[in-house]
């Protein structure tokens, strides 16, 4: 039992100051009793002599200089963990909100975690079969990777996340060892409800652990929610040997909460008012994905962020891209053309893909197909911009065939639809079929041997038609 102090000396934003605090530790958690009944929590962020600055998780409204009793709990912010957290729902600070009572703590862990020793990491190599061609074929998701979805308001990122979860879980089918940790920061009520409903429909609810901070919940809890979620994920992955998929949405709201807190704290702002430590802060979240040598579990992260004004150079997507191992970018113009999932393939990238595909993982010709598809699709863009100036009729025959290729690529290969689940074989075969619609001379990235074995314009249409029919 720690010391209890009466009253406080300053209130500013979400921070309070307490005098005469003795023997307190940096980052220690405090319990604040307001008016003798309403309990709030906070943590020490700065100590100066006997004055402690405390960040209050639930906000400071209703606090006065003399209506509080503050108790220092003597440990940093922790959450209770046990196997029973699966199927439960918590708030951003890790307290249950599903009415099922407290978690019987098998184990308690500091939510800030500890940096993972790079020596102890195992380089991720096994891919996750998401059944989505644009991801599996061109931006393969690797178990232990952190691959964010860069989206914009109004784009179907939530739907895509749900599709990845439900299809990956079917394909994973080691069944029992697959789990999902869902961290929602500042999401709208109906978004949270949509995820919950979708998890129930796909029958994974008992494997999901949810940390929900709604957009009208306190911002400090928003900054804690992803940390709680990742701490839970680390427990499930490294103590219980599970393969955990962590979905964090929406990272932009998280960063805005951080900015709000930082500016109320009087800190010197960096770009667009975000604090100078935004990179380090985001890294402390994203870097918690991975595989540890000697453990059976893994943590794969899919953070979702909405780019304000679809601007990929905005600090949040920009810094995220520097930390994560690639990105899946959703493209508004594809979506407006009725293509789902609207994955902009040229801007998307999976950095770990090169080591997790090919012989022994997917198929030996995978990287060649992917390279050629990328290169050809880049040519499509050139042809289109030329067509927009001189008109499509004036294009050379080669450019015309690129335009046609581009349409099928987007409509069939990328736009497979919400229900379609393609195996890796189907995706790669479809890739060959698409390439076969191009003239032979256009395939400049492929080995002649490979072309001889797979280039077959006569069967291409049949495979494409098949893919169309499955999409429906």
């Amino acid at each position, binding site marked *: 039992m720690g010391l209890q102090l009466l009253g406080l000396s300053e209130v500013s934003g979400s921070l309070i100051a307490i005098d005469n605090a003795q023997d307190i530790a940096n980052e220690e958690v405090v319990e604040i009793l307001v008016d003798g009944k309403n309990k709030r929590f906070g943590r020490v962020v700065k100590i100066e002599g006997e004055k402690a600055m405390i960040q209050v998780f639930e906000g400071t409204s209703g606090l006065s200089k003399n209506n509080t009793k503050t108790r220092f709990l003597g440990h940093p912010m922790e959450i209770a963990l046990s196997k029973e957290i699966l199927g439960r729902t918590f708030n951003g600070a890790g307290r249950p909100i599903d009415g099922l009572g407290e978690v019987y703590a098998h184990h308690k862990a500091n939510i800030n975690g500890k940096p993972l020793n790079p020596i102890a990491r195992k380089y991720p190599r096994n891919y996750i079969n998401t059944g989505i061609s644009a991801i599996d074929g061109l931006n393969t998701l690797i178990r232990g990777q952190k691959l964010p979805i860069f989206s914009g308001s109004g784009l179907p990122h939530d739907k895509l996340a749900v599709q990845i979860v439900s299809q990956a879980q079917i394909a994973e089918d080691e069944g029992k060892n697959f789990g999902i940790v869902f961290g929602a920061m500042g999401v709208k009520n109906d978004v949270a409800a949509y995820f919950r409903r979708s998890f129930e429909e796909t029958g994974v609810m008992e494997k999901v652990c949810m940390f929900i901070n709604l957009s009208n919940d306190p911002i400090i809890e928003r900054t804690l929610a992803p940390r709680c979620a990742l701490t839970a994920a680390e427990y499930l992955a490294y103590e219980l040997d599970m393969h955990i998929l962590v979905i964090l949405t929406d990272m932009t709201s998280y960063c805005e909460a951080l900015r709000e807190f930082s500016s109320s704290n009087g800190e010197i702002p960096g770009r667009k008012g975000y604090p100078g430590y935004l990179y380090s802060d985001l890294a402390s979240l994203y870097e918690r994905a991975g595989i540890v040598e000697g453990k059976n579990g893994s943590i794969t992260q899919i953070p979702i962020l909405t780019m304000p004004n679809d601007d990929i150079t905005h600090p949040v997507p920009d810094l995220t891209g520097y930390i994560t191992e690639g990105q899946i970018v959703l493209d508004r113009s594809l979506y407006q053309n009725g293509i789902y999932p609207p994955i902009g393939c040229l801007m998307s990238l999976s950095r770990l893909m090169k080591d997790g595909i090919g012989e022994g993982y997917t198929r030996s010709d995978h990287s060649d197909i992917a390279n050629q598809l990328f290169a050809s699709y*880049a040519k499509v863009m050139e042809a289109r911009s030329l067509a927009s100036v001189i008109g499509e009729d004036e294009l050379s025959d080669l450019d015309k065939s690129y335009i046609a290729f581009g349409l099928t690529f987007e409509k069939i290969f990328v736009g497979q639809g919400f229900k379609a689940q393609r195996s890796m074989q189907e995706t790669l075969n479809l890739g060959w079929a698409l390439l076969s619609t191009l003239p032979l001379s256009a395939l400049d990235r492929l080995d002649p041997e490979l072309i001889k074995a797979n280039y077959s314009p006569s069967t291409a249409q049949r495979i494409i038609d098949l893919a169309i029919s499955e999409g429906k």
Partner: protein
Amino acid sequence: MENKIYSINGPVITIKGETDLMMMEMVYVGNDRLLGEVIGIERNETIIQVYETTTGLKINEPVIGSKSPLSCVLGPGLMSNTYDGIQRPLKAIADRYGAFIDAGSDILPLDINKVWDVEVSVKVDDRLEGGQIYAQCQETALIKHKLMLAPDLCGIVIDVKPSGLYKINDVIIKLKDDNGKIHDIDLTQKWPIRHARPIKDRKTLNMPLATGQRVIDTLFAIAKGGAAAVPGGFGAGKTMTQHQIAKWCDADIIVYVGCGERGNEMTQALEEFSELIDPKSQRPLLERTILIANTSNMPVAAREASIYTGVTMAEYYRDMGYHVALMADSTSRWAEALREISGRLEEMPAEEGFPAYLPSRLSQFYERAGYVDTLNDQQGSVTIIGAVSPQGGDFSEPVTQNTKRFVRCFWALDKSLAYARHFPAINWTSSYSEYIDDLARWYNENVARDFTSLRAEMVKILHEESALNEIVKLIGADILPDDQKLTMEIARCVRVGFLQQNAFHPDDTYVPYEKQYKMMKIIDYLYKEAKTLINKKIPTRLIAETGIFDRIIKIKYDVSNDHLELLDEYFHEIDQALAKVE
């Protein structure tokens, strides 16, 4: 007098009242003995930056000075090791404490129990000057470690042990300095990381660092002892470029500093360097590599120290007469660490919140590159290649702009090239190297007399192409006259056939100078010969139909590095193809 913590704010703590601590002194903070450094002394307050997480730290815990600035321990055992930014050995920490790093782990940087076969080369009554070699031992199969007297020491040997097996802390020499003080010399020395190690003389740079990457070696070469910056947005291939250079360049030793970057990348580097075999010695590359891994989630203050730790180690091996290449990935993260700490100190910010001393810190770092005469009269070099991660891929931000002033080689990575999967995505219009003139003589003597003129010709073709591209964008390529169409075709050969290089192809990942030169020569020959046909009113289309351009583009795959004589046949092939058209 005991110093006690008065305030804690993130990684910055202060001590109230008078202290005997020096500026930049290394200190141990709190009961867990966290490593820190004094960064400010005011009338009533001493400010300390802590290199580890301060969670759980309390006020009134003690702060103990070490009486010396933040230093690196240098001696046998550094090679093949992996350290964090403040030289804690990560492998030993993982073995003892498990996968996650605790604060204050007190493991020594070098293995004190390992026995080295030391060959002593001095005798009693020899006079030793600072930096002089007194012994050597085989550190790894690739590296002979020369034990040098600390640069700030000199004197007469009064006692010396015979050659034999010693541990790093065994005293093998007793040295009496000019003041009569006796020093025990073992296999190690300490050096403050923020100070450049002394040298005898700086030499002019006139030898390239051969990297086997065509766009670098031929177009934008870097000299041994030079400094280069690799700026690029995310996904443009900074890390890939750095890895390729680390793997293939002809330096004797690589120091790879992962400064605030991804953990998995360090794991990958470690894995690749242990698997890859050095072609010259048939030993794993790791035996000539030191890794400094301060990933983005490790404490930010240690990130700030990491590049100094790296460059100090690089200088130490340079002093033995080695050519060392230092990769720093990424200096922007280091600059952000500066900014973060500066913000905590409430210093007045300059551009974008970065402190006003950013340029001077950057220049101090890059100026530690150089080709030198060492104190023991050998020649060695440190080449620095720093990645820069500009926010939003915008090169006008302060770190890129200031870096540009202190490096003479600039490899600008271009996102649009990366999107089109053109790797290495080094943009040929915005990149430059100021070393080309200095290196011209080396090229003349070691590659070919017309190497630099061919290079100039290639640059010209690429330049013309980018001007023509502006027109093509407006009216399409069909409208161009035939000589310009030819320029476009040749430029395509240069871009796709020469500049584009496949890091995953066994032959193309590394290309020797001879092949680079011949490839240029072939392209140039094709250009000249085709031009004479164009002058005879033969359209470019007919030349293209012979497929000769595509043949030239595929040279990089068709001619393996072991059969460079095959290259000579291409001249003949060009003659035949063009004769057909004519």
